[in-house]
């Protein structure tokens, strides 16, 4: 087990965003978290990456209890995170955005080593042609790619991806899928949140379904999509959307 969360809980005011969530991630595994809007998926990633602290529960990364560590320490221990709402450093070039991850991520690198790592990830993620562009001049699809590339540049052991495929054209999403797969080939485990079901089906080894902060199903894509509570949760959402 590479990453394990036990009884993870987080409340915002009176709302339980995440309730007693247990899950684990094995080395080299790709795990998807799906669920309706507001199910608490992004909160889970925020708890894992240390954006805010958990109210209860434990998070263990490769035997190290990281529950109370600040975000930067978790990054150093091998958690790489791409945000749903892209957060590029706007005045930096694409190359320098990746450079930050390469320099300060999970391996202590010199400037020269970080530059080499940056060029490697630029090539891997298909960003080499845009390396010299300021990040603020990119379209959303390319910003998403930078967001993911920057997390990869930190050389994580666990890559946390929050809807990096949302809003992409099918071909763009396919390119991102290929990148995630090639990162996994190097032994990195991936935990991703996704609404595009095709991506979940094609990419995930295992799927966790959340609703109202709780895990309601877990298993293969076929298992969970046939699960009655999952169908109910999604149908319930569609009814609410239609009303």
């Amino acid at each position: 087990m590479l990453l394990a969360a036990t009884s993870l809980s987080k409340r915002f005011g009176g709302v339980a965003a995440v309730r007693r969530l247990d899950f684990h991630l094995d080395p080299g595994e790709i795990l998807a978290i799906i669920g309706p809007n507001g199910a608490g998926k992004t909160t889970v990633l925020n708890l894992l990456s240390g954006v805010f602290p958990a109210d209860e529960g434990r998070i263990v990364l490769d035997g190290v209890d990281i529950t109370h560590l600040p975000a930067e320490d978790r990054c150093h221990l091998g958690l790489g995170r791409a945000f749903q709402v892209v957060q590029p450093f706007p005045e930096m070039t694409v190359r320098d955005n990746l450079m930050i991850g390469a320099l300060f991520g999970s391996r202590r690198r010199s400037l020269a080593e970080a530059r080499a790592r940056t060029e490697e990830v630029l090539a891997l993620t298909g960003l080499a042609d845009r390396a010299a562009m300021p990040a603020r001049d990119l379209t959303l699809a390319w910003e998403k790619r930078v967001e993911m590339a920057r997390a990869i540049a930190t050389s994580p052991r666990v890559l946390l991806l929050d809807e990096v495929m949302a809003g992409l054209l099918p071909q763009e999403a396919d390119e991102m899928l290929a990148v995630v797969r090639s990162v996994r080939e190097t032994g990195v485990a991936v935990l991703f949140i996704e609404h595009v079901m095709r991506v979940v089906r094609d990419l995930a080894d295992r799927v966790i379904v959340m609703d109202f902060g709780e895990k309601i199903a877990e298993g293969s894509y076929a298992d969970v999509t046939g699960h009655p509570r999952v169908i109910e949760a999604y149908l319930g959402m569609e009814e609410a959307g239609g009303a």
Partner: protein
Amino acid sequence: MRWVGPAALCVALLVPLVPAGGYQQYVVQVATFVLINAAVALAWDIQARTGQLSLAPAAFFGLGAYAYTMAALRGVPLAVAFLLGPLVAGVVSLGLGIVTLRLQGLYFAIATLAFAEVVKVIFKELPLDLTGGAVGLTAPPLLGGHQTGLYYLGLGVFLVVVVASLAVRHSRLHYAFTAIRQGELTARVLGVRVVRTKLLAFVLSAALIGMVGAYATSRLFFVIPEDTFGIGLSVTALATAIFGGVYTTAGPVLGAVILRSLEEVLRLVLREGYLAVYGVILMLVILYLPGGLVSLWNRRSRDVAGGD
């Protein structure tokens, strides 16, 4: 444009040798103040690169100035007293930084402003035989007060700040500072030790400003709370850096050369009301050139880069 720095250094080295007749002393004096303004503005800019708006440069300038003066008056060798300037400013900034650097944006700015005012009042109210109260103290001059010697010492002090700025620019600190400025949370998630890095920038900047304070005092020959800790000093540092171009080494230096010269020329030509004209020019540049004067030059070089 690699020749600009060395060329400017040559000009600076030659200033006291320029035959300016009766104006010789005046030219060297103005040049000395350009160096002081440039050094304070550039040292302020170093910590501004982490996105922290410090309004306390006057406090560290004053601490450096008083540390030098009080030590020198008590018989401490002048060279040692001079080194106390950056040391005292650096140590105090470490304490202030630990307390305030977790504050965001305006709250940090206001905390530093309040600190600067409090330090000024403390030095005013301390026993007369310690700080001289509101009247201040007479500072023993370095190098026997020799004007040309002091000019070159000032150039040395200024170059220390320039070297510090360039060293930051060409190290991993540059990436850490810029990342923190453009997105603190993202920087943390990518592994940047934000608080530690901000603290380093703050203390480095304060120590450099304290060094300039110690030097400037040995050149001005006195310290007075209202002037030495004056808000005017902080405002000048910010205006100079913003006018020339923040987050660069060239910007604050260029800003100091042009603003200080402009002020002198306007004063000689207009005699009265020159500060109003000075203020309008400053406002126009800040309004129409948000990146400061250096952005003119960068804009051109970016077009060139985009063309190939």
